[in-house]
Every structure is written in C-alpha cells, then in structure tokens.
C-alpha cells in the first residue's frame, strides 16, 4: 500500500544509458502523488531514454530509482509486467489492435493484466471511455477513428488499471495544435482526479499555455526550471 506522502517516482544519482553511451548523468528528482510534470528538452537530449528507464525498458545501470514502490535497479525481468500495471504508458509507437473494436482492445488489456470477471471488466471499460470522452466509440474499429480519437483510446487503455502515474512520451507528436490542446486538457483532467503525470514534450507553446512544474534535459543533466524562464 502506498503512503499518501510517499513520492510516486524517486530518482537518486541516476545515470541513464542508451546502449553503452551515457545520455544523462546524476539525475535527482521525485514526483509526488497527483503531480503534473513536463519533461522538456531537444530531440535526442535523453527525455525518452529517461522515461524508458522509469518503465524498465532500459536497464538502470547506476543509481537508485523507485517507481510506484518497485525498486528499479533490483527489478527482475519477471516483475516488469507487474510494474507496468501500476503505471500507464502513452507514446506514439504504442499501437492499438487494428483488427478489433475499441471494446475488444481494452478487453484484451484487462485479460492480459489478470482481470477475470466479465461484468467488472465491462464496467471498467465504460468508466475509462467516459473519462476520455469516447464512450460512443466503444464498438468502433480504430481505423474508423481520427488520430486524436485514437490517442484518447490509447490514454483510456493506460488508465484501465488505475495507475499511480502516467508516462507520456510526445503524446501529441503527430496531432494538429487544436487537437493537441484538447488532448493536453484531457491529461490535466486525469491529473485532477489524482493520477500523477510525467509528460515528455518539446512543444513549448503548449507548456506556455498550461504552466506546470518543468524538468529540462540539457547537456547530459536534468534541471528543475522555475516559471517559464529558460524555455
């Protein structure tokens, strides 16, 4: 059980490697429950690698990291799926199954993460679709939805297991500005209901519109940025 005051994410002296090359060194920060944090920086500055380290896609080689009560440097391969059920991951390459409806997509995830009761599963799917404003699309196929709508479904999928934190890597990467703003509003709403969010983006216009805590990857370090200075 999580204590209310314990951070969801803690990093101490973490070095982030991409293959054998050091991308970020001596990273220290923590994210509290219900916090909203932007992670910015140029392309290639190590944002994605940092996120991957946090959801155990890249091995943590040096330092201490704790995500949702899992100690990342001591994580065994068999535990990785269970860590990922406590967090939500949203990013561009993250695909929906094109051969099945929205409901079947979400149902698959619930089955994969150990749900068994049909009625509860259906209720949960209805809940998350309501949360992302896509309830009417339940029986549609992904190709019948627009890019923004698909992204909402992906977000709904990430919310299914009621995660403590969402990791979003350029979630609005290939959406037009208007749709991007809507998606960001959705993230803010999810955040209001208590889920912490760490969002990597290089869309500074968006950050200006929705000010929040900001971390910046620059020259191999992660810096805490106050206000909108240094953008």
């Amino acid at each position, binding site marked *: 059980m999580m204590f209310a005051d314990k951070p969801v994410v803690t990093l101490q002296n973490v070095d982030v490697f991409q293959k054998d090359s050091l991308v970020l060194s001596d990273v220290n920060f923590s994210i509290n429950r219900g916090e909203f944090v932007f992670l910015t920086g140029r392309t290639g500055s190590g944002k994605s690698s940092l996120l991957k380290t946090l959801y155990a896609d*890249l091995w943590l080689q040096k330092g201490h990291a704790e995500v949702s009560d899992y100690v990342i440097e001591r994580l065994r391969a068999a535990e990785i799926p269970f860590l990922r059920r406590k967090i939500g991951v949203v990013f561009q390459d*993250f695909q929906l199954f*094109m*051969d099945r409806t929205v409901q079947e997509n979400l149902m698959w995830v619930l089955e994969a993460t150990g749900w068994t009761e049909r009625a509860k599963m259906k209720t949960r799917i209805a809940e998350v679709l309501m949360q992302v404003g896509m309830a009417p699309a339940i029986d549609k196929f992904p190709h019948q939805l627009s890019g923004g709508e698909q992204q909402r479904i992906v977000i709904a999928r990430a919310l299914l297991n009621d995660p403590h934190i969402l990791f979003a890597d350029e979630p609005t990467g290939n959406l037009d500005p208007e749709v991007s703003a809507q998606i960001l509003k959705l993230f803010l709403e999810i955040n209001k209901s208590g889920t912490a969010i760490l969002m990597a983006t290089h869309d500074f216009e968006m950050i200006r519109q929705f000010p929040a805590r900001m971390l910046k990857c620059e020259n191999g370090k992660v810096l805490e940025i106050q206000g909108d200075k240094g953008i």
Partner: protein
Amino acid sequence: MSKSKQLGNTPNLLVIVSLTIALLLIGLCGLLTLNAHKLTELIKQNVELQVYLENDLSTSKLDSVFKEIAKQDFVLLKEGSPQINFISKDVAAKKFVEESGEDYTKLLGKSNPLLNLYTVKVKPEFFNEKSLLALKTRVEKIDGVHEVSYVENFVDSINEKISKVYIILSAFVALLLGIILILINNTIKLALYSQRFLIRSMQLVGATNQFIRKPFIVKGALQGLTGGLIAATLLVVAQQVALHRIEGLAALQEMDKLVMLLVIIIILGVLIGAMSTFQSVERYLHKSLDDLYK
C-alpha cells in the same frame, strides 16, 4: 494493412507450404526406409539350402530323401506343407544355358555334369552363418545326399549393405531437417517482423511474456498440423501411385507401420510449427525498442 496487424497473424500459405514440403521429404525417406526394411525381411525368408543328390537315384529313393528332409525342424512351412522344390538336372542344365548363354553341350557332348537337387527354404530364425553350417552337416548325413550348399557370407553382406543404406538415409533426413528448420524459422521470423510493435505494445500494458506468446504458438501449432495433414495425404497418394507403377511393391506394404509413419509426420509438423514460433516470438520479446526500428 489491417490484416498484418492481426494478433498472431503470420502468412499462412508461406509457412504451411514450406512445412508441407519439409514433412513430405522426411516422410518419403521414412517410406523408403520402411520398404527397405520389409525387403530385407523378405530376402531373409527366401534363403534356400541347395541339397545336391547322388546321381541315378531311383524315384522311390528320391521320395525317401524328400521325406527325410521334410521331417527336419528348420524347413519353412507354408500352409502346412514344407517348402521343398525338386529341380532335375535337365531343368538345371537348361536354366544354366539360358542364364550363362554358353551351350556346354557343344563341349561335353550329351553328358550332363549337373546333379538333381532339392531347394529347401529355411525358417528365418536359422538365418545366420552358424546355424546354416550346422544344418549343412546334418543334411549331408542323409543317405543319397551328395552335397549341401548355401551362399556363404550372404547374410553378413546383406546386413552390412542395409545398415549402410540406413546411415545414408538418416544422414539425409538429419540434413533435411536442419535446412528445413532454418527455412521455417526464417519464414516465421519475417512474418513476426510486421508484428514487432504490437508485441511491444502488449509488453508495455503489462502483459506477461507467457500471455503474449500464447496466440502465436497456438497459430504456429495449427499451421504445423495443417502442413502435417497435407504432407500425410500426399504421402498416401505417392504410395498408391508407386504401388500401381512398380510391380511387386505391394508385397512390401505394412499398413500399421505406414499409419505410424503418418502419425509421426503430423506430430513432427505440430512440434516444428510451435517451437519455431516460440523461438521467433522470444527474439522479439527480448529486443529493446530501438532494435525494433532496424
């Protein structure tokens, strides 16, 4: 487009065709081995002692020698009657002239140097050098028998040749199996390449590897089953065609062994299909995202 995104979807036709060809070739080798095995058994059953008789025996004497031999325990019985044939020296002479093309009568005049003989079929259990030698001395003691002979070292030479054939055949099958496993592995690997991001997505929502593997392996096993069934059908067809074309082949057929071979082919198909898929999925399960883009 949407089809390649189907879960566990691999190009059915490609995988099934290569599996079918592989299994068919292995099956044909198996069929060949079965027939060769049966053939040696038949050859062994046809081993004969040649009992040469003294010249100028009376008909009653010939008859008593026949009865004496027929009493022996080594004589092969067919439907209760001993398998003993009488070949008169005239018949033997004609046969000799036919086979050798040399008319010795021109050299020797009317006199026939050949002897009357009984050919005696021997039970398979006496078919080894030692027993045959014992039989030879036993039969030679019978009054009226001039000499007994059999083809010496015949047994050993058959056994040697057959085991050579087996070694070559099994080496061929092993080589084939190796090539085929690589081929099928490649086919399945390519097929799964289009699904690598899907596999990725499943991992990121927190599905265990076991859960992700299952649909792929079920599919692979089904493809193997299909390939196996087609190969088995083709084998039966090939065997029937061979039966009609090759005379005497029918004598070599054993239904129970053929059925066993077909069952093995089908099981082999399922195993190869499932295991190759397992291996290929495993490869993608342990790849990092960056490697997926390569």
